[in-house]
């Protein structure tokens, strides 16, 4: 494999070799060194609210059944039959107490345990030949959640999710904890675009500079009153922990006035005031910054905007969560969810959903123009000329790395991390610096797991699995208050 150290060095000084947006070798490295160890978002708990609910989600090539078992625990099973490797569940979502493999009929409880193995005695000589007891679908090596957002990591030794998120968790609350009940998520809309996955993640992380140009048309039609060029640069970008985002500077007012300015009804504002810390309230109420787009490394993004949804001056805020799922070096599957505070009034939920559809997602008017840019960029990055080009991603800093505009002080911005007013590419650099750190660090080969036998070279987890699921060796799962509804079993 080509030595990429020169590429990583360029990226670290904010000079981007243009070919990283369409390079097969780079993509192979990304698969191995980013997506086999970073925490990757798979689902929100509200998508699998009842026992037996499941969604099937991928981490690149690996398919996982993300389900709530009968005890209310959330699990992620690798979607491959332990027998000959058939895909166990071929639906995208549903409710099931068991999954039966269509090939030879092995069946698994929704907690992953194998319960049916046709002709176990005749074919294998029973337990003596194949140890069925304690076998379960391969669990995701690591599983954790924050504010109901479920992530998995393919690295059994991954840092705890909360440590991975770091101080970005402060900002995550604006999107996912507007009340004690958190959000409910609907969707996703899924579609594939011929664009490299990093471009969207970088754009959402910090590209306030594109708004006045790319999104001119949505301002012209009166959909959005904010992104006038001079307005956008009054906002700040912030980076904290493993994520960062953009904000708008709101007109004068206190917390309530500003939340109301973007369209939140009073009863929701009251819940936000009790759900957020003093500092979280201060960022909006005193400092005057309202969060907008954001990204968490590597490929999860958020949007919060407030368009007009009817022929009036009122605006309505919406939240969207999205994932840039890499398909190849030049193709990305976008998964775009609508998210809304679970305690919001029904009328608000409906109008917020309307705002989402008009702005983002497969039909969104902001989104339409973004994607066109990213597809063209990816296409142009494939050739040999792109290999000569080092794109300047140093906006916001001078040649000697000093800041064009100094960072906001703690008095000016109450949030953690570092924040800068104005157009800059601090966040794109932060995101790609993490990208470079991951690509530089080789991964150790994962231990093999042997099904139904005492093979040589099994790791501890495999043995634990074989010996049965006693408490200490239970695979990663999220403890849960069992849901009140009884499971309705439809089969899968």
């Amino acid at each position, binding site marked *: 494999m080509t030595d990429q150290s020169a590429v990583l060095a360029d990226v670290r000084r904010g000079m981007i070799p243009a070919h990283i947006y369409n390079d097969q070798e780079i993509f192979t490295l990304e698969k191995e060194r980013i997506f086999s160890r970073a925490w990757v978002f798979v689902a929100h708990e509200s998508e699998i609210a009842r026992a037996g609910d499941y969604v099937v989600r991928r981490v690149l090539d690996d398919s996982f059944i993300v389900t709530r078992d009968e005890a209310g625990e959330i699990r992620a099973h690798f979607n491959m039959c332990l027998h000959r490797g058939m895909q166990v569940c*071929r*639906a*995208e*979502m*549903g*409710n*099931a107490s068991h999954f039966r493999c269509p090939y030879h009929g092995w069946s698994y409880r929704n907690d992953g345990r194998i319960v049916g193995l046709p002709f176990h005695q005749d074919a294998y000589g029973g337990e003596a030949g194949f140890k069925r007891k304690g076998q379960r679908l391969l669990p995701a090596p690591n599983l954790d959640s924050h504010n109901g957002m479920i992530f998995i990591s393919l690295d059994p030794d991954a840092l705890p999710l909360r440590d991975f998120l770091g101080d970005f968790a402060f900002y995550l609350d604006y999107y996912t904890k507007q009340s004690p009940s958190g959000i409910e998520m*609907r*969707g*996703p*809309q*899924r*579609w*594939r*675009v*011929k*664009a490299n996955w990093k471009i969207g993640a970088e754009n959402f992380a910090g590209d306030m500079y594109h708004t006045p140009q*790319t999104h*001119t*048309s*949505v301002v*012209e*039609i*009166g*959909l959005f009153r904010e992104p006038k060029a001079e307005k956008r640069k009054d906002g700040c970008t912030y980076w904290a922990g493993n994520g960062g985002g953009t904000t708008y500077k709101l007109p004068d007012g206190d917390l309530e006035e500003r939340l109301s300015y973007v369209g939140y009804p009073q009863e929701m504002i009251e819940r936000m005031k009790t759900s957020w810390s003093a500092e979280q309230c201060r960022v909006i109420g005193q400092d005057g910054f309202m969060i907008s787009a954001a990204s968490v490394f590597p490929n999860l993004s958020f949007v919060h905007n407030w368009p007009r*949804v*009817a*022929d009036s001056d009122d605006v309505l805020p919406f939240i969207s969560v999205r994932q840039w799922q890499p398909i190849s070096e030049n193709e990305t*599957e976008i998964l775009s969810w*609508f998210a809304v505070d679970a305690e919001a009034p029904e009328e608000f939920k*409906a109008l917020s*959903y*309307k705002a989402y*559809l*008009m702005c983002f*997602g*497969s*039909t969104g*008017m902001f*989104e*339409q*123009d973004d*994607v*066109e*840019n990213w*597809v063209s960029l990816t*296409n142009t990055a494939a050739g040999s000329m792109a290999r000569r080009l080092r794109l300047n991603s140093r906006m916001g800093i001078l040649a000697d790395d000093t800041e064009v505009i100094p960072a906001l002080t703690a008095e000016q911005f109450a949030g953690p991390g570092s924040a800068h007013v104005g157009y800059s590419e601090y966040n794109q650099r932060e995101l790609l610096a993490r990208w470079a750190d991951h690509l530089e660090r080789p991964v150790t080969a994962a231990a093999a797991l042997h099904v139904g036998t005492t093979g040589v070279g099994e790791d501890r987890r495999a043995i634990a699995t074989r010996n049965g699921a006693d408490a200490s060796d239970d695979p990663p799962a999220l403890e849960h208050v069992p849901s009140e509804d009884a499971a309705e079993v*439809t*089969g*899968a």
Partner: protein
Amino acid sequence: MSSSRENREQVTTQTHSSRSVLGAHASRIQRLGSTLPFGDERHLAAHQWLVDEAYLLDAQAYEAWLDLLTEDIHYLMPVRVTTALGAGFDTSPGMAHFDEDKYSLSRRVARFLTEHAWTEDPPSRLRHHLSNVRTFATPDEEHLIVESATMLFRNRGDVRESSFISAGREDLLRRGPMPDGSGWQLARRTIMVDESVMRMQNLAIFL
């Protein structure tokens, strides 16, 4: 525009629109009986309406297209999901690609008419292929239900791969808008796309 017959229908019937998040306002009129004969005047009128509409959409003549829609139009394109046989649903609950009223459609059209809708500059080449048209009577003379299949071919630029969308549609046509009662307008459309993961970069198009 609602007869007492329609009101009765509204109480009792469910449509894709009535089950969607933003379609409560939509007419709930449904089909009556089996397919009208292909020689029936009503079928001929409905078929011609769809063909004329397809030409407008190919030409991106969206202002003219907007005039074909009633004020209470509900334009719905659910998100399809793969579910087990017998699951009882195959669309994503509470989510859609389009869940539009006249206002939101008019904003989409207005955007295309600005000079800064980059995604369509240069414009796509579009061809809406239309087939499998069948027409049904409804409880009143003012409405027809028309089903059709559509295949949209879209090409952008010179060397980019083309993309397709295949979908089935169910339309509710209402008599009008001419004062003498001639002509037809679209009052409700449900677009059942045949993919759960779309292969088109965006839906800056109409079906």
